[in-house]
């Protein structure tokens, strides 16, 4: 990738983080996660009922690299809320279970929200996420 393309990619990713109050960088899509950790993070977000944008990092390895440079965080998934890194699968799961996640997202979780993150595999699909998908693809 040329330096120009790298700079442009970085700007696009930075914009995705700035423009979307809740954005998840993940492997695959919310409908078809391609990694168990991404699936689990999607399941936690969906269980809160919060809308979120998602960006699939798989189409271009450079996306993953640039996201990690911006966030100083080595792994995917990564959840950003209001432009700030919240964490990866472990932190999002812990925050879901303590109730902090809904608070951070500014939503009241539905009354029937489970206490623990529903199993990502075979979880009942939540409401369709709003916002971008693969906009960098």
């Amino acid at each position, binding site marked *: 990738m040329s330096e120009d393309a790298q700079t442009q990619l970085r700007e696009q990713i930075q914009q995705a983080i700035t423009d979307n109050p809740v954005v998840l960088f993940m492997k695959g899509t919310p409908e078809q996660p391609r990694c168990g950790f991404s699936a689990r993070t999607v399941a936690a977000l969906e269980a809160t009922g919060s809308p979120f944008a998602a960006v699939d990092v798989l189409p271009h390895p450079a996306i993953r690299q640039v996201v990690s440079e911006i966030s100083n965080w080595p*792994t995917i998934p990564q959840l950003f809320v209001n432009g700030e890194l919240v964490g990866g699968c*472990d932190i999002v799961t812990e925050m879901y279970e303590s109730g902090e996640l809904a608070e951070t997202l500014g939503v009241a979780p539905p009354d029937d929200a489970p206490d623990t993150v529903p199993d990502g595999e075979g979880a009942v699909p939540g409401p369709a996420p709003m916002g971008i998908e693969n906009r960098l693809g």
Partner: protein
Amino acid sequence: MPTSEEIKLRIEAAIPGAEVAVEDLTGGGDHFRAEVLADAFAGKSRLDQHRMVYDVFGPEVGGPIHALSIKTQTRTP
């Protein structure tokens, strides 16, 4: 390919006083779960606590260590 024991020893060497439990999640030597209890985490955000553990392995995370799941705790007085 690292073993759970190696991962544990490396975290303990890098974070003095840490009590570490490591589990090989798949038995394949590339997906690990580390639970780390350390005084060195005191006053740090959860993000920075996890970064301290990731930093022990640098680019190995995402490479030979495909996934490292982390739980950090500070001793509560």
